[in-house]
């Protein structure tokens, strides 16, 4: 287990370094002049002198490589720079918004994983149950609809027609429900299908049959023995999903005015606020890499063979 940890750690560092270079180049080389975009936010055209002055002030006239080294040095010291738009420190802004995104991603992951585990267990326990099949079918169907549309439907139904939950914002404990369900539904289908298929195989393996033959109750056989064998694929998928939840909440956060980092990124991209965009990509990509590494460790813990590989 220790070697696994060490090797994964080294790989992780390399991945993060490559990531930082990509993040910087992709954002810095993207077309569009941040200075001009910033100056024309009110919808009026700035004078060329003002654009030139702002470019110099933001250091955009320096060579690209010098900008990357300066940026990387700052990042390693924990300084993500200042927003071009309102000059506030980016690290503080991200830190302020990250809990909201993690909260949303966490609840969404609970929704997705809960739905997947419950429905697949139900189908494994009672293969002929119509309800379980219908729920599985519905979950897969919903996952094919873009989250934006699902979100709008949930808002019109639950928030506007029933007035049961707020349409957006983050006031009150109920505000997280609709965005989390929207996000969770998008992730549930993959998990559900993987887990159902693997569980179907697992119940037919010899040792599970032996457990049944021993006289264990069906419920205990499926939930304790078969589920553990069936888990690895779904856990890996859950890692990917968790990463997607953190990085992909952009649309849902904007729709529900959820004050997380995704919403910040949308505004920043629109006005070419490079430090914020870079910090957002860096932080979420790091989170994604970490989530995947965590999933791998879980698989290793679940399956002894993975440790030897």
């Amino acid at each position: 287990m220790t070697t696994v940890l060490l090797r994964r750690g080294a790989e992780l560092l390399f991945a993060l370094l490559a990531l930082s270079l990509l993040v910087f180049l992709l954002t810095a080389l993207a077309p569009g002049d941040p200075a001009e975009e910033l100056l024309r936010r009110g919808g009026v055209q700035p004078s060329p002198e003002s654009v030139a002055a702002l470019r110099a002030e933001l250091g955009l006239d320096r060579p690209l490589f010098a900008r990357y080294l300066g940026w990387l040095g700052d990042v390693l010291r924990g300084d993500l720079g200042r927003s071009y738009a309102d000059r506030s420190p980016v690290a503080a802004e991200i830190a302020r918004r990250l809990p909201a995104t993690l909260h949303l991603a966490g609840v969404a992951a609970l929704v997705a994983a809960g739905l997947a585990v419950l429905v697949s267990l139900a189908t494994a326990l009672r293969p002929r149950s119509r309800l379980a099949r219908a729920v599985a079918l519905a979950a897969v169907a919903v996952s094919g609809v873009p989250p934006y549309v699902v979100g709008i439907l949930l808002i019109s139904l639950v928030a506007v027609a029933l007035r049961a939950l707020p349409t957006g914002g983050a006031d009150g404990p109920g505000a997280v429900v609709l965005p989390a369900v929207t996000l969770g539904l998008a992730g549930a289908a993959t998990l559900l299908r993987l887990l159902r298929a693997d569980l179907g195989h697992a119940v037919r393996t010899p040792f599970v049959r032996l457990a049944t033959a021993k006289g264990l109750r069906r419920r205990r056989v499926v939930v304790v023995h078969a589920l553990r064998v069936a888990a690895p694929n779904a856990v890996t998928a859950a890692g990917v999903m968790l990463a997607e939840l953190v990085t992909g909440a952009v649309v849902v956060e904007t729709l529900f005015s959820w004050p997380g980092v995704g919403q910040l990124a949308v505004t920043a991209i629109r006005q070419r606020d490079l430090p914020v965009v870079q910090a957002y990509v860096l932080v979420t990509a790091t989170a994604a890499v970490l989530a995947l590494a965590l999933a791998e460790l879980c698989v290793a813990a679940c399956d002894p063979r993975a440790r030897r590989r």
Partner: protein
Amino acid sequence: MLRRVLIALMAVLALLLQGCGGQEPSGQGQEELTLAAPRDLVAGPDDPYYLHQTLGVWEPLVTVDERLRPVPALATSWSAAEQGRRWTFTLREGVRFSDGTPLTAEAVVANVERFLRIAPRPSAFFSLDAGMEAAYGKPAGVRAEDGRVVFELKEPVADLPARLAGFFSMVQSPRAFDPSGGFAGKPVGTGPYTLVEWVKGQRAVLAANPHYRGTAPAYAKVVVRVIPDANARVAALRAGEVDGLIDKGALLPSQVPAIAADARFRVLRSPSVLTHYLTFNASRRPFSDARLREAADLAIDREAITRTLLAGTAAPGAGFLSPVFGDLADPGAATYSPERARRLVAEAGPPSAPATILISSAETGQFPYADIAEVLRTALEQAGIPAKVTVAEATKAVMEAGDYDVFLSAYSVPNADPDYLFRRFLRSDAAWNVERRLGYRSPAFDRLIDRAATETDPAGRRDLYHRAQRLLADDRPMIPLAYQDNPVVTTAQVAGAAQNVAYVVDLGRLAPAT
């Protein structure tokens, strides 16, 4: 076990839902009002203004009315001397800032000097250009004299109040600023409200200013929420979470008909400074040929575009300046004649390569530009000009490479002076004209707008601007497609909504409907 898990889950869900079931209906005759806007109307202490004029925390010397005329705000009157080289503004009496200190001419001067000191400076609203020429022309000095504010200018300015109208003549207490020109704390203004709480990107909370000179606003507290998504904004309105939607782009054109038909809401359609223009690339074929620009102009059915695609929220474009410029706008006339367009194309020789209609992806969210561009493409093709539509993220780079033929985009002005539009976009040496390859060089046009900018006689200035616009109508470097309204909405329980052309809703005049 499964059942137990299920029961536990239901219990958790029930607990979660319980906390949020009973939202109180906000506003509705009480002292509190909740509004929503597409963007954060507070920009923070590093912004030159801190917050938008519409929040009613600060007031300008001069503002604009619903026809873009400069009208008194903190200045009650003004006069020009020495052919527009000296302007004197008389201040309203008995005005106090929200910290209790009186408004003085010295305070106004301190604000102007601060702007000049910190420019150039980007802003979420109207950026301060180097030298502040759009606001003050070429200032030689500004001073307080017998309680009045006097601007001395190196070159005459025809209508300084029009240039100052709005953000460029913001007045806040000099104590609000630190020595470097930033904000020392909260903004301190003279308006009906003060800013009591700001959660960046989420909401601003305003409270009635106890030192306000006029009658206290009907709502003691106003919350302005930020809801960036247009569908979510309308959902919040329908769900009764907000009492109104304000600011630029509060409602999408396509949302207006359904909301306007609903008796629970009052939609206010007031004209705005925003105009949709088509900019031609006349530095390459096909539109280097004036006949083909005219053909394109004739081929467009502006009436149909404004009525259907813009859902009646815009008026068909005709004269170069929007009618909100009042008598400075030349009425002009746009003709729709596909037959004449076809004849002109046949006469000039139909182009072989397709013309590129360029739109910005940043604007497609607010206006149905993808649909409009498609209609334009069809119109051009029917006239005999093959065309294609390109959506670009960074239109500046595309235009500077000269890789477009028509650019569809909306423009507004930061104040009430049309000089800005002509000088920034179309003068022969304008950066827009030169860098974006418009290829428009007209010494006659340059002379007309230069004379108009310093002509202090209103009738003479009007005549010069009308001549300049007729020149543009013939040359067609840019043609107006539509004059956009900015619809805002409140519930029927809120009365008194009024919006000027610069998207400023006077929050102090909102009151419960009786």
